[in-house]
Structure formats: C-alpha cells, structure tokens
C-alpha cells in the first residue's frame, strides 16, 4: 500500500493528520499516543512543584516562599480569585525594597514547565540586567498571575516578572509564560501587562525568552509603562514571535485564561 499522499500531509503540519483508520476509529497506537499526551498534561496540572530544587538552582540568590489563599489544587482550579491573593500572614515574609525588579516563580497550571525552565530564565535574564536592583526571588504556590501584584506592591517593586506554568496542551505540557507588570498593585488590568509565552523545548528557548524579557524590563523602566504602550514601542525582534497568543486574541469566549 502506497501512502505517499498521507506522508505529504504529515510533513505539512504538526497537527494530528493522516492518523489512519481502524474502521471508523483510530488505530491502537494513535489512540494510546493521544492518551499519553493527555496523561502528561494532567500530571503537569496536578503535579506539585519542587520549590526546594528551584531554590537550589537559584543559589546563592535569596528566595522567599509564599502560598496563595487557595488551600489545595482543587480549590485553586475552582476559585481563581483565591489564587490571585496571598494566604493570611504570608505578606509578612516579604522583604520591602525598593527594588527595580522582582522575579516571582508561580506554579500556575504546569509543574513541569516551572521545574524545567523557570530558574534558567531568571538566571539568564538577570545576567543581562547589571546595574538594576533585583529583589529576592519569590516562589509562590497555588498561584495565578495577579498574585504578583500583591507581592510586588508589598516589596516596593517597580516591576514584577511572574514566571508561571501555562495551561498544558497535548503537544507541550511544559510551557512557561512570563508576565511583566509595571507598578504592580492589586486590581491591575491584564492589558497593563506584557506576556512572553510558549517557552518550552519546541517553542521559545529559555535564552531567547531571557533576551526578550531583559529588553522589556529595560524599556519598561525607561518609559514607565507595561502593556499595550510598551508593546507598541517594541521592535519586531523584541516581540515574542513564537508566542501562542490565543489567550489574548482568540475568539472563543473569554475566561479560559486559566493561569491568569
């Protein structure tokens, strides 16, 4: 049986085309491969980040561990509002600056993403930001993007960069996103942030992500704004070209931005 035509389709896309048929269903191997991809995504969502390992990777940098108001993963998934604020008493662990920049590593929706890429991005970005006052790295569990607003405000940070596990897809369960916010404070709108997404093995490399983030940090400090104002000032090379922008521009109904 010649299947050249199907082979051509497979070469044209990363989508699951030309999977073959067993009657009206999938061949067994394709069926199980799909299940494995979903299983990896599920494990990434429900996995617990080893923050001790991340602290080791970041040594000798100071780290501060905090927890959101969501007591467990099931509550985190049901109640996004709890993941956006600190648990009672946690704010007292934070050290006030002032700082130009605070990195916050948040588990979000993928433990794999955070464990695989977050420390590398922090280290590579920091190396390009000599001269700035950078605070301790905050490690936040059961956290969403907006938790960084509380943390940044408490620490007197001019900028916060929240590195967070993105909602896993079947093709990448370890995708990391970075959200940069100027003058963080509770109630900051998502449109006032800049996002670099899709940081993983087959997406944006940690080095490229660090380049973009360092550019955004310097520019945000220079012009005093993040969000749309900063995006418009960015040269093409500084924009996240491989970003998976669905969370911002897609037109499925909103509310699916699970990591925010």
């Amino acid at each position, binding site marked *: *049986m*010649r*299947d*050249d*035509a*199907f*082979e*051509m*389709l*497979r070469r*044209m*896309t*990363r*989508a*699951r*085309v*030309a*999977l073959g*048929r067993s*009657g*009206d*269903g*999938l061949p067994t191997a*394709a069926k199980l491969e*799909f*299940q494995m*991809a*979903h299983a990896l*995504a*599920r494990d*990434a*969502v429900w996995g617990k980040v080893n923050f001790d390992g991340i602290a080791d990777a970041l040594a000798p940098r100071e780290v501060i561990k905090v927890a959101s108001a969501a007591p467990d993963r099931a509550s985190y*998934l*049901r*109640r*996004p*509002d709890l993941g956006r604020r600190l648990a009672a008493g946690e704010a007292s662990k934070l050290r006030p600056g002032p700082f130009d920049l605070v990195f916050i590593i948040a588990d979000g*929706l993928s433990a794999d993403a955070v464990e695989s890429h977050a420390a590398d991005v922090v280290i590579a970005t920091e190396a390009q930001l000599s001269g700035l006052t950078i605070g301790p790295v905050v490690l936040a569990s059961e956290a969403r993007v907006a938790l960084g607003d509380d943390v940044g405000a408490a620490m007197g940070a001019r900028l916060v960069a929240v590195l967070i596990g993105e*909602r*896993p*897809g*079947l*093709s990448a*369960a370890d995708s990391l996103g970075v959200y940069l916010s100027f003058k963080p404070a509770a109630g900051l709108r998502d449109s006032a942030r800049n996002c670099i997404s899709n940081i993983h093995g087959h997406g944006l490399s940690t080095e490229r992500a660090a380049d973009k983030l360092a550019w955004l940090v310097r520019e945000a400090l220079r012009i005093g704004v993040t969000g749309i104002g900063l995006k418009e000032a960015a040269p093409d090379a500084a924009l996240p070209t*491989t970003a*998976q*922008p*669905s969370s911002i*521009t*897609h*037109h*499925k*109904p*909103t*509310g*699916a931005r*699970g990591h925010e």
Partner: protein
Amino acid sequence: MTGGFRSRHRGETHVFDDLGALLACASPRRSGDELAGVAADSAARRVAARMALADVPLRRFLNDPLIPYESDEVTRLILDSHDAAAFASIATLTVGELREWLMSWEADAGRLAALAPGLTPEMVAAVSKLCGNGDLIAIAAKCRVVTRFRSTIGLEGRLSSRLQPNDPTDDPLAIAAGTLDGLLFGMGDAVIGINPATDNVDACIRLLTMLDELRLKFEVPTQSCVLSHVTTSIQAIERGAPLDLVFQSIAGTEAANAGFGVTLALLAEAQEAALSLKRGAIGSNVMYFETGQGAALSADAHHGLDQQTVEARAYAVARAFSPLLVNTVVGFIGPEYLYDAKEIIRAGLEDHFCAKLLGVPMGCDVCYTNHAEADQDDMDDLALLLAVANVNFLIAVPGADDIMLNYQSLSHHDVMRLRHLLGRRPAPEFEAWLARMGLLDDSGRVPPLPGSAPAVARLIGHGARA
C-alpha cells in the same frame, strides 16, 4: 410583580428573594455559579427552588425582567421582539406546565417552530432547569432549525460538521493539510472555520483568500470563515476579501458584549456588509456566532444571574441576525465555570436545548481543557447524546487536538463514526460533492481509503499545491 418566592417541604420553608435568585438556585450544581455566589447551598434547597419555579406563570418573565429594560439592550431586544401571537397558545401556562407540554406528543416540529418567537430566553432557561438530561435530549430532538448559504444545515437525518484546521502560526500549508484531512472524512459541510493566531486584517484576508481558492479548486459546496473580531471582518469586506460568513463571540448581556467589543448595532452593520457581497448560492444566512456558559461572569457582566440563564440570553442576540451557525464552546472556558465532565455534559445539553427551542441553529464544540476533570471518553458521551438530540453540527479537529488553542475537541474520526453509527448524513449538497469526489461508498458511508486511492491522491496532490 416583584417580591420573593417560597417553597415548603417537610416543614422547612425556603425563601428566594427574586426571580433571578430562584433561577440560580434551581440550576444544577456547577462551579461557575458557586464562584459567583449564586448557587443553592444545599441539594434540598436546589430542588425546593425547582418546585417553586415550576409554579411560576410564564407571563412573569415578560413582566419582571431579570436585567432592567432601561439599562440593557439585550433585555430590550428580548422584550421588543417578543411575539405575543406565538405566545398566546402557552400564555396561561406555568413553567412546570410548559415542560409537560414540550414533552407531549402534541408538541411536534411544526408546533415547536411556530412557538419559538413567543418564547424568551428566560422561559426556556427556566424550563430547562426542570428537565432531566433525557428530557433535554427528547425535546430538542423534535426541533428543526434549517439554514442555508452554499449548503443546507439542520435537515432531518443530517449531521453537519465544522472543520477547524487551526495552526499556531497561521501557516497556510499546515491549514491546508488539516483541511484536506478533514475533507477526506467528509468534514466541513457546515463551515471550514479557522481561529486565527493573529487578529489583524492582513492575516484575515490572507486566510480567507487561501480558503476560497481551495474551495473553488475542488468546487466544494460549503462556506469558509476566519474567526476574527467582527470589526476585522468588516474591514476585510471593505478591502474586497472573499468573505462568506461574519463570525463573532457573543454573550447574554450588554456589558458582556461590550467586553467582546460588540453592540447589537455593530452586529447589524456586519450582517449588512456580508449580505452586500451576495456570496450565498442557496441562502443568505451570513452570520456565525460562538457562545458559552461563563463568558458573562468572566467579564463580571452577569448581573447576579446564573450562568445558564445568561447564556440563554445570548441566543436572543443570535437569532436577531438569522445566523447560519451558532455553537456553544461548552468545555473550553475552564473548570472554574464547568468543573468536570458531569457539568460539561449537562451544560452542552442545556445550551443545545435552549437554543433550539428559541429557533437558533445550534451546534456544539464538544470540548475540554486539560485542567478540567474530563477526558476524551466524556467527549464521546456528549457527542453521542447531542447527535441523538439532532444537533445541527459538531466541531471536528485533526486528531481531536487543537494545536493552536491548546484544548481537545472531537476528531474527524469521531464525527464520521457518529454519522455511520446513527445513520446521519452530511448536508445534501456536500454529500453529493463527496460522491462526485469518490469519497463515499454505495451505502453513503465514507470508507477508509489508502493514500494511493485516486480520490485521495487527487485531493491531497492538488490541495497541497494550492
């Protein structure tokens, strides 16, 4: 007409402050209503609310709007377009009595279609809360809503599909591959629709042109759509793009629609622009809408209503523009609105039921995200239930895996299998095309063909060079 509602059971009295609270408490449990703080706080209170709701006269929904007439254009649309003559036959009924009439053998396709303009979203949302899943399926299965552009969608015995060949970089070659894969399974008779990775006019026009060339090359009797914002589509039309359908996400309140950047006037402008192109060969249904429970709450624009009632109000927006296609994106929104498969399945059946009763050509994106408690087995279940309920169309993605939006829907295999299993066929014009292309066997089924089969080689060989 204000004042609370009471329900007594075994000596306990449940009080509900107003109609909105009663509807919210009567809703089956779901995470979005709990997040909003409007859900019943016990199982007994939930059923007590249903008992009180069953006794509410339908007229009450006309006289006691859930969101004030003065402050919401969707309320104004609902009340101003209400057809009193169509309503007359049920004007004296309560919600509970309406459920029984809908279940009766007397309520056939013709009578249900005649009643649709007399029903409001709030009435159908209310009655859905008294229905079990089986009721939702049985009643919806009796409704027919037929629409046309180049193909006819919603006829008895048919099950159409949207082919959704999304790509994270809008790569034309990758999109062509996904499209060809779907056509080989008989997908795409409702629409070939792409969610663009970037929403700008140039990208939109590029994709529209590419899809139209593919359609013309093979003379496929279907329509294409790039799911950009409505303002992008209007600009594309002004620049002469080959645009078949205008897409927009819509919701059930003026404020939630503002969150999507649309008003009723803007939708009307878009419809007029699309109609001016006169591209429909056999009909002039030119709009395509997506909806989904939780959209209003996520925009903090739900006015204290439960998410299913607000969702039903979106169908009043839809039907005002005679759409070709509407679908709920039921499991896409995430577990804070629909936590698990039980909630997703129920919501999918509710959305389809409410839309069909209101005369809206409803389809469904049977789907879930990876942080919801659901998997592909649950999608198999919901797709089967909706197909039995005579859903107009289902969305199909290569291998069920949308590599752009990062969620899972149904696969081409899944929708084809449902057709074969239940004896449902594609839209007649598209079915004839499949036969011409050599993609149907004598019994009207899509057989597995090797890559060397002439039909496959022709489609892929020419399509890949398009």
